[in-house]
């Protein structure tokens, strides 16, 4: 096994040496990014069996847990880290055929966002969570602007919302520290019962605002469509596949481990349902394909939050499975849509008509990912949709089940509209040369079909991760040990 700290440390090192690599050879930065993310995946895999047996605590600086900063990598963090680094790896393959104007700076920020998101899921310390969220968002603000054009406005909007959110998050951290006297997540969780209930309410609300921005929750998600539409495709992909997964992880960590109270789950449930319905309804009306994917993405986030906050073990498992599927499918949707957009020279759905025969790989990738999201049998989305419906029925939440099904129907309508345009209409435009995405499409299609046919593949991590979320006393015991 390799030391897991490298997952954060190596991308940071490679990010800041990127200008040197660029000087050596102008083609080098994109390969460095690919190699770094591949190395991260290997490090994660080499630690897999060990983490499944017992969560890993990495004490930084050689001091014991409550006194020094520690990293905590349990099954949940492992799943999230796999999603983040996996998305970054696939998008690095996609980036090989892309040319960015300042490519050393692009890959510098790309590795920063990977390191930041990985840090968010691995940290065991509230303040470091804040620092990693800031690393991730600052990298995201700057990455967006690589598309030029209107991306500056989108980035400015995100920067203002993110800046206000980070003030609230810091305020919440300050209140928590003043009430508990520690920033270690396990120590806060152990003494959360002693916090004054009113202060706990305010603090939870502040955390919800601060992290809800990363997790794309209503009403803090109006930056999402602009960023996803204007940013380069690889950036939209990593925001949707990695950063939002890290946001959901942070949300679960705060509300299940730190302050597990039924009323907060009820708030999350309501927010999640509103996000889901609103996202699907607006996605249905979109004419811009990237904007449609953005609204679909935030609707999926709403679905995941809804299901996880039902709080039963089956529901949490279903929500996590949906999170995994969402990362895989949205990365594939964004890269295929990116190729189709640059082939057609337009982001409008009606301009993509007939591209199915001219751009077979991208159209196939888009179609299979859309089918996955809709929940066609033998694809991964079917299993997670099935688990979601059955778990919400078992939790006696009939209204929630009905709303989830209604949202799924709207989803079917707008995804099939695009697929129909791709294959059943005649080509009206001249096709431009575009990126080659054969390798990512094959890899992701294998994953989609693999998880759909044989979901037991990830049954063990899901089981362990759900158990970890629902039992915060085990988290406290593992970190604090005998103290």
């Amino acid at each position, binding site marked *: 096994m390799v030391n897991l700290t490298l997952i954060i440390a190596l991308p940071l090192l490679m990010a800041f040496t990127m200008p040197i690599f660029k000087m050596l050879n102008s083609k080098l930065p994109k390969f460095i990014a690919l190699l770094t993310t591949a190395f991260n995946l290997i490090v994660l895999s080499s630690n897999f069996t060990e983490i499944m047996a017992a969560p890993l605590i990495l004490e930084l600086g050689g001091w014991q847990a409550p006194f020094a900063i520690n990293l905590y990598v349990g099954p949940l963090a492992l799943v999230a880290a796999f999603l983040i680094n996996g998305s970054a790896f696939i998008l690095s393959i996609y980036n090989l055929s892309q040319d960015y104007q300042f490519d050393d700076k692009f890959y510098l920020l790309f590795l920063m966002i990977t390191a930041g998101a990985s840090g968010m899921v691995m940290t065991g310390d509230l303040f470091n969570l804040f620092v990693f969220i800031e690393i991730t968002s600052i990298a995201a603000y700057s990455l967006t602007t690589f598309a030029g054009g209107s991306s500056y406005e989108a980035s400015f*909007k995100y920067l203002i919302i993110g800046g206000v959110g980070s003030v609230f998050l810091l305020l919440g951290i*300050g209140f928590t520290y003043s009430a508990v006297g520690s920033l270690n997540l396990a120590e806060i969780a152990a003494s959360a019962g002693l916090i004054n209930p009113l202060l706990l309410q305010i603090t939870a609300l502040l955390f919800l605002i601060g992290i809800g921005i990363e997790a794309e929750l209503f009403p803090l998600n109006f930056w999402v469509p602009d960023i996803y539409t204007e940013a380069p495709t690889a950036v939209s992909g990593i925001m949707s596949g990695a950063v939002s997964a890290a946001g959901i992880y942070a949300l679960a960590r705060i509300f299940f481990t730190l302050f597990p109270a039924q009323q907060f789950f009820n708030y999350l449930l309501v927010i999640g349902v509103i996000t889901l319905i609103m996202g699907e309804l607006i996605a249905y009306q979109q004419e811009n394909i990237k904007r449609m994917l953005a609204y679909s993405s935030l609707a999926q986030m709403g679905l995941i939050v809804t299901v996880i906050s039902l709080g039963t073990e089956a529901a949490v498992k279903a929500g996590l499975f949906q999170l995994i599927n969402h990362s895989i499918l949205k990365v594939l949707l964004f890269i295929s849509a990116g190729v189709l957009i640059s082939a057609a020279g337009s982001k409008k759905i009606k301009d993509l008509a007939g591209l199915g025969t001219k751009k077979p790989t991208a159209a196939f990738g888009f179609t299979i990912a859309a089918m996955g999201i809709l929940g066609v049998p033998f694809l991964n989305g079917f299993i997670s949709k099935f688990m979601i419906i059955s778990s919400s029925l078992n939790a006696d939440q009939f209204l929630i089940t009905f709303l989830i099904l209604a949202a799924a129907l709207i989803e079917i309508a707008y995804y099939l509209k695009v697929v129909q345009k791709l294959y059943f209409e005649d080509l009206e435009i001249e096709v431009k040369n575009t990126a080659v995405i054969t390798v990512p499409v094959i890899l992701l299609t294998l994953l989609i079909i693999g998880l759909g046919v044989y979901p037991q593949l990830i049954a063990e991590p899901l089981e362990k991760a759900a158990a970890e979320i629902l039992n915060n006393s085990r988290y406290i015991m593992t970190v604090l040990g005998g103290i």
Partner: protein
Amino acid sequence: MLNFLEEWSFFGGSILLIFIGLYGVLSRKNMIKILISLGLMDTGVNLLLVALGYVEAANAPIINSVNPSNAAAFVDPIPQALVLTSIVIGTAVLALGLALVMKIYDKYSTLNISEIRGLKW
């Protein structure tokens, strides 16, 4: 009364500063003013964090021959460490924001957000 004021002016003042900043972010139309308001919010929360770690008549938490190791005589060092980090982050965000404002100004020749198509919210 005076004691009470002394004790709470830091908390009240910094919360007030945060709300002034929030009001500015929500109501101003000028992009530079929005960023200044964001800076005010940052300052407010930093002040609040320092105030949380304040201990009356205590020294800076540095161990030397004048100040022997005695936890009771020191102010809480952790909020100060947090504030240092958060000041750096706040500065970086503001600098990036100003750079974006420059780019947007180049394109539209205006700082008013209601005249910029992509910024309406």
